[in-house]
């Protein structure tokens, strides 16, 4: 299935405490279940993490880390160039 990468926030959590490895250096951070326009749902971080609400329109972005490529989302209204330039770096992932 081809996807536009656009969707809405079905639900989300915002971590204020380091309960999971990964983005512990960039608290708080948000992870959302995003429902794509085409129907399927994906998990991804939301950059920036707040303010965030169910139903918010978001668009997917890719960022290359050292050993993997991350799919994350940002508000559909944001200036993509501005946000994509400085995505948070995860802590070393085992």
């Amino acid at each position, binding site marked *: 299935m081809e996807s536009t990468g656009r969707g809405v926030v079905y639900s989300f959590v915002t971590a*204020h405490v380091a309960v999971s490895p990964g983005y512990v250096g960039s608290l708080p951070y948000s992870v959302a*279940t995003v429902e794509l326009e085409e129907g399927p749902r994906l998990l991804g971080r939301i950059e920036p993490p707040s303010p965030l609400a169910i139903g918010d329109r978001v668009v997917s972005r890719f960022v290359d880390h050292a050993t993997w490529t991350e799919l994350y989302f940002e508000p559909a209204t944001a200036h993509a160039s501005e946000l994509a330039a400085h995505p948070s770096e995860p802590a070393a*992932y085992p």
Partner: protein
Amino acid sequence: MSIPASGPGQTAALVGVGFTPFTRASGQSVLALATEAVANAVRDAGLHLDDVDGLSSFMVSDDSVPCVAVSSALGLGPLRTVLDVQLGGQAPCHLVWQAAQSVARGDAEVVVVYRALNGRSGARVGSMQFAGMGGQYRYPIGYGAYLMYVGMWAQRFLNETGQGPDDLGAVAISQRKYAQDNARALRREPLALDAYLAEPFVVDPYRRSDCTVEVDGACAVVVTSLERARDLAHPPVVVASGCYRAGPRPGLDIGDHLLWEDYTRNYTSWLRDELFGRAGIGQGDVDVAEIYDCFTSTVLMGLEGLGLCARGESGAFVRSGACGLDGRLPTNTGGGLLAEGYLHGMNTVAEAVLQVQGRGGTRQARRHEVAVVTSGALMDGSALILTADR
């Protein structure tokens, strides 16, 4: 769905409960905890270790000990049935129901179901990374703790049902009241709404008091035939109905909820009709509810899923005091996993047994003929209806 009329319903009973102390550092092996709780449960029932011919337990990522180890350490006679399952909090009601079926079939006469773990000083399930295929999509993005998954559902549930922080807080407050009278409970200090709301978020929508407290400890319950139960130490608790259910597309592991259609309805919605139908009991007949509560939201979702409250009305129900000792439906009467400790719902079953037997002490519900118990939070789980011997 047709409901089988036959089965173990009404022919097996819970007859005793056993505990170790719940602590933050037991200083004991999990095997030592397991044997202590099993032996205590057997003694509580008025039985002897020689009577035990079945054991059943569950573990998450090898955090416990298998049934044969407990049998060896206690010097039990031949075991006629064992069940060691890889499940978490979905398991307790399921295993009790399986034990009841074993007894009803004549496979075994006395089955002890236990859960033992050093859940605080050892491997902590709350932040454990689960084996399997699902984690590769979650862990790299910092989505790797169980409270995040349940929180993801809670956020949607609250949003869709028009509920909020006051409703979550009401659950924590209601249960903390019971815990004050429970010597086993780790969190016994009173809790008020303003203090709850002042707590910082751990993972929004959860504050500290929305989350269970991880503990070291063990808990066991004993199942035997109703006939034999009538001659034992305490009033029999009839296993009237049990049910396990994994809804459609339950995921690759217990943290993979991505293919689940509706985060506002968990397994309780899926097993409700079969659970109550098999027992021939209606929601209005329930005197006591023990709802699995690793986090506050699962109590609200469970009350609604089981049909004990209308959709969107569970928060108001709890806020009205209905779940308190003087309320219409005393709920989580030991303080629950939130306050007593995270024995993954084995203690939730044990509390229901104590209530139906009338052994709740200062936190005993006045009416206690029918109890409903649940095990689990998200895609799959199980439940029991327990009754007095009527």
